[in-house]
C-alpha cells in the first residue's frame, strides 16, 4: 500500500469512527486543518517537478476531495441524528384537546327574518319598520277598528297610562308606509308585537311579519300567488298546498284566512300535501277605508295585506314545540336551535339552514 492509500484509509476510518460533531471536527483539523496531514501533502505539491506534480497532483487532490466529502456526509448524518434525537424528546400527546373556541349562534327568529327578507326581496318587497309603542290611531282607528268595534276585543292590548299602547300587530307599519310613500308599494314589516296573553302557545311578546302591496289592478289572485310563492320558497318544497277560507279582519275586505296542508310524521308537523290543515296566515284585500285613511284614493289604488307569526314559521320549519323557550335565553336551546354566523340565507345557497 502506498502512503497515500494508507493515509486515505486511516483518515476515512477516523471519520467513520467519529460519533460526535466535536470528534469529527478533530478529525477534520487533523486532516484538513493548517497542520493537517492532507494539508501537509498539498503543500508538497509546490516543491515538485512538473512531471512529478502531474503524477502526484491528482492523487493528492483526490485524497482531499474524498476526505472533505466524507466529512460533509458524516457531518450531515450526525446533525440529522442529533435533530432526530431532539425531536424524539419533544414528542407530545396529540390526542390532547386543542384550545376551545366558544360557539356563537344566531337566534332562529333572526334567522327566519333574514330568510323572509331574502325571499321577499326577490319578489320586490322592501323591509319596513315602525315604532312598537304606538298610538291608538295607527294601531286601530286607521285600520278601520273603531273604539267600540268588537274586533278590539280580539286584541288583548297593553296600554300605557297616557293612552299609548304596545302595537298588537305589525299592521301600523302598513299605515305609516302608505302615508309616507307613493304607491306602488311592496313591503314586508317584521317585528315585535304584544298581546296580553300567556300560555303554552301564546307569549305576551312575539314576532309578526306583515306584507303589503298597493298598486293598480291588484286582486285576490295576486295575493294567492304571493303567499304560495312565499311559502314554497320558505319551506323549500314544491308540494306546499294552500287552502283559502273567507274570514274577517276589519282592515281587509274581502278577508281571507290561509291554511297550509301538512302531515304528521313522528309527532312533528311536516308542511306539504293536503292531509291535514293548519292556519298560518291572515290576509285580504286592503279595505278601501284603510286606503282612504292613509290619504290615497281607493278608486285608483288597491292591494292586499297579510300577516303571520315569525316564531310560528320558525317552529314549523325547524321543529321547536314550545314558544316560551324562544325568549328564555337558555344557552342549551340557543345552541341546539340556533344558526352559525355563516348560515346567511341566500337565494343561490338556499334560505334554509
Amino acid at each position, binding site marked *: 500500500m502506498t502512503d497515500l492509500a494508507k493515509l486515505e484509509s486511516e483518515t476515512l476510518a477516523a471519520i467513520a469512527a467519529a460519533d460526535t460533531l466535536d470528534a469529527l471536527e478533530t478529525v477534520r483539523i487533523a486532516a484538513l486543518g493548517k497542520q493537517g496531514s492532507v494539508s501537509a501533502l498539498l503543500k508538497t505539491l509546490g516543491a515538485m517537478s512538473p512531471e512529478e506534480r502531474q503524477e502526484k497532483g491528482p492523487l493528492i487532490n483526490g485524497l482531499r476531495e474524498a476526505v472533505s466529502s466524507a466529512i460533509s456526509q458524516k457531518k450531515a448524518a450526525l446533525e440529522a441524528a442529533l435533530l432526530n434525537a431532539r425531536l424524539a424528546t419533544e414528542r407530545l400527546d396529540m390526542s390532547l384537546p386543542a384550545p376551545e373556541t366558544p360557539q356563537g349562534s344566531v337566534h332562529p327568529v333572526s334567522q327566519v327574518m333574514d330568510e323572509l327578507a331574502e325571499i321577499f326581496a326577490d319578489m320586490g318587497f322592501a323591509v319596513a319598520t315602525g315604532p312598537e309603542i304606538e298610538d291608538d290611531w295607527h294601531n286601530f282607528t286607521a285600520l278601520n277598528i273603531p273604539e267600540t268595534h268588537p274586533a278590539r276585543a280580539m286584541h288583548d292590548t297593553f296600554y300605557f297610562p297616557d293612552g299609548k299602547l304596545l302595537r298588537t300587530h305589525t299592521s301600523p307599519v302598513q299605515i305609516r308606509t302608505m302615508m309616507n310613500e307613493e304607491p306602488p308599494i311592496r313591503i314586508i314589516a317584521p317585528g315585535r308585537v304584544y298581546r296580553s296573553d300567556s300560555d303554552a302557545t301564546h307569549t305576551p311578546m312575539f314576532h309578526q311579519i306583515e306584507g303589503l302591496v298597493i298598486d293598480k289592478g291588484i286582486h285576490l289572485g295576486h295575493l294567492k300567488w304571493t303567499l304560495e310563492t312565499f311559502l314554497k320558497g320558505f319551506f323549500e318544497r314544491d308540494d306546499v298546498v294552500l287552502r*283559502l277560507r273567507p274570514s274577517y279582519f276589519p282592515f281587509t275586505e274581502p278577508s281571507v284566512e290561509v291554511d297550509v296542508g301538512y302531515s304528521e310524521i313522528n309527532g312533528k308537523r311536516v308542511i306539504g300535501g293536503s292531509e291535514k290543515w293548519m292556519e298560518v296566515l291572515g290576509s285580504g284585500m286592503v279595505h278601501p277605508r284603510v286606503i282612504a285613511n292613509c290619504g290615497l284614493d281607493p278608486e285608483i289604488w288597491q292591494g292586499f295585506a297579510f300577516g303571520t307569526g315569525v316564531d310560528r314559521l320558525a317552529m314549523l320549519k325547524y321543529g321547536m314545540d314550545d314558544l316560551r323557550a324562544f325568549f328564555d335565553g337558555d344557552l342549551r336551546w340557543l345552541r341546539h336551535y340556533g344558526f352559525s354566523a355563516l348560515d346567511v340565507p341566500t337565494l343561490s345557497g338556499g334560505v334554509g339552514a
Partner: protein
Amino acid sequence: MKFTLSWLKEHLVTDADVTLVAETLTRIGLEVESVENPAASLAAFRIARVLSAAPHPQADKLQVLSVDAGDGPLQVVCGAPNARAGLVGVFGAPGAVVPANGMVLKVAAIRGVESNGMMCSTRELELGDDHDGIIELAADAPVGTSFAEWAGLDDPVIDVAITPNRQDCMGVRGIARDLAAAGLGTLRPLADVYRMDSLTPVAGTDAAPDVRTDDTEGCPAFFAQAVSGVTNGASPKWMADKLKAIGQKPISMLVDITNFVSVDLGRPLHVYDRAKLSGALVARKARDGEQVLALNGKTYTLDASMTVIADDEIVHDIGGIMGGEHSGVSATTTDVLIECAYFDPAHIARTGQKLALTSDARQRFERGVDPAFLDDGLAIATKLVLDHCGGSPSAIARSGQPPLGKRHVAYDPALCTGLGGVTVAPDEQKQILENLGFSVNSDWQVEVPSWRRDVDGPADLVEEVVRIIGLDAVKSTPLARTDGVARPTATPAQMIERKVRRTAAARGLNEAITWSFLSEREASAIGGGAWSLANPISEDMKVMRTSLLPGLLSAARRNMDRGATSARLFEIGRRYLAEAERATVGVVLAGDKAPRGWASGKAQKFDAFDAKAEVLALLEAAGAPIANLQVLGEAGEHYHPGQSGTLRLGPKTILASFGALHPGTARAFDLDGPVMVAEAYLDAIPAKRTSGFMRSDYRPPALQALTRDFAFLVPADLTADALVRAVRGADKVNIAAARLFDRFAGPGVPDGQLSLAIEVTLQPQEKTFAEADLSAISDAVVAAAAKLGAVLRG
C-alpha cells in the same frame, strides 16, 4: 257558536250529512272548530233485554243474567240491584270501550262464572251521574238496535267560530241561510219552523205593559209584551235536549225560551217577573254609582254612560248585557213581561268593556242584532210562552224606533274580477246576493238586508260573491316582476343589524331574545324606565326596558342556575326611551372566559377588556370609525366606577359603554363573580358615506417601515390612550402607527408614576430616513409626550 245537526235541519231542508255541512261552513267563512258526535263513543252499545236473572253461586251481591242483545241469549254477570228479568237496558259486548273509564270489555270469568259483556249504568256511558243501577229503558225499546240512535244521541254537535262581523250567524237561522245560499238546501220559512201560521204579532187582550225608553241613544227601541197567568215548569224535552246538547243547562221554561231564541235566532230577550216590578219599566241612563245585582250573582257599579232598564225603585237589567237577580223569573212566577229591545252596539261594547262583563246577549247586541226583527222576535217569544206556560197575552208596547233605514250599495259586477280575482257571470252574482237576502235592481243598486250590518260597500259584496263561489276558484296570478335581478331592499339600519348579529355570533356570542318589558326591580337596577304599562300581564313584565342588559343578565343568571359555567350572550333590540325607540346591541359575559385546561391552567375570568374587545368588534362591524373613538368615563351607575368607560365620537356622541358590572348590580341579578357587559347604540353610529364600489388606488409604500420604541415615565392618572394619541400626533407625516406594548409600575418607577412603552412605526415617504430625520422625529415624540407630563426613561 254551537248547534246540532238536527237543530240546523229545523231551518234547512237538506240531505247533507255532517261532513258536507262542516266542509261547506268552513268554505264559506264560518270556520268549524269542532264536530263532536256524542253517539260516536256509544256506537258499540245496543239495546238488550234481560231474559232471566239468577243468583251468582259464589257472590251474594252478583247475579247471573241471560241477556238478549238481538243475537240470542248471552250469559252476563251483573252487580246492579235493579237487574231483573224483563228489564230492557243498554248492553256493551266484548270489545266495546266504556266511555267513563276507557275500559275495554272482554269475555272474563267473574268469581268463576263467565261473563260476555256488561249491562251499563248512566254514569258508565257518561250520560249522567246515576250509578245506583243499570239503565232502564221503556219496555218497547227495540232490542238489538243501536242505543245512541234510538235515544236521539246520534246528533253531531257543530262548533263554529263566528267572526265579529257576522251577527246574523250568532243564530242557527243565519247559519242555515248562508248554507242555503251556498247550495246546500233550502231555507224553511220561519213561521213553519215555529209551527205558526204567520209571524204577525200575537194579539193580546190585557192592557200593554207600561214600558218606555228615555235613552234613545243607548236603547233606541224597547218593545214588550206581558203574559199573565203563566206556569213556569220545566221545558219540553225537545228544547231541553237541544240546550243540553250545546252545553247549556235547562233552568225553567221561561228562562229556556229566552236562551233558545237567542241561539236559534240570534235574538236576545229578557223576561221579568211582573210581581217584582213597581211602576213603569224604563230604559234610561244609569246614575253614577248606581248598583245592580246581576244574574251571575255579582254586583256591578254603573256610571252615567251605561243604559239600564229600571222601574220606579231599582235597576233590573244592565241593558242588553245581563238581567238583574231581583226581577228574574222563578218557579212561582205567574205574570211576566217579555222585553224585546234594540240596544246600540257601540253603547253595549263600551259598557261591556267597562264592566268586563261578557254574556251571550252582549255578544249579539254589540255585533248589532237585526233591527227589523223586534216584532217577529216578540211574536215568537210570546207564542212559545203561551204554548208552554199558558196564560193570556197583553197588547204590545212599543217605545222608540229601531234604526230601520234602508241601505243601498252601488255595485259593479266587474269588481268581482277586479278585486276578487275571479270572474262570475253577473246573473250568477245577482242570484248569490239574492239568496243571501240582498235585493238587486236592474242598475245594480243593491239593497242590504237588515241583518247584515257589516255590509256597506262594494268590496263587501265582492266578498259575499267570492265566499259563496269559493276561494278555490280564485286563480293564482303572479305579481308583475321588475326587469333584471332583484334589487337590494335592506335599509342601512337593517344592514348594520345583520352585520353586528353575525359578527357577534362569529365571535362566540349566543344571540338571545328577551322580553321588552322588565319588572320594576330589574328596571330600577339599571336606572328605571320611561314607559310603564297600565295593565301589565304580571308585575314581572311591566316597565319597558331602557337597556338590554337586565334581560340578558337575568338570562345569564338562569343559565348559571342550570349549571352553566360560562355565558356569552348578546341581543339586538330596542331600548324604549321617553323620546324614541333606539336600536341597540347588548352583550353580557358572565362566568368563566375559559375553563381550566391542561395547557392554560386554572379557569380564567372575563375582565373589562373582554367587554371592550367585543364592543369594539361590533362597532367596527357596524361601520363605526373605530380609530377615531375616544375612551371616556361616565358609563353609568350600574358599572364598576374604575373599570368601565364609554366610546365616544367627539365629546358628546356616545356610541357604546362597556366594562365590569357594578358588584351591587350583579347582586341585584343574583350573579356571582365578575360580570362584564357592554352596549352599543347602533342608531348613534354616523351613516357611512358611500361613493360607489370603486376603492381608492392601491399604493403600497415603496420604502420599508421601521419601528422605534419609547418608554416614558408618566403620572399614574394619565390614560394610555391620551399618551398614544399624543405620540401618534407628534409627526403626522412620518408616524404611521403607535401602539402601547408595556405598562409597568413597581421597582425602578417612582411612586405616583407609571412606565408606559410605545412602539412607533415610522414610514419613510420619498427617501429613507437619515440619522438627523430620525432624531428630529424622536425629539418631536418626546416633546409631544412631555406636554402630558411624560418623561422619556433614561
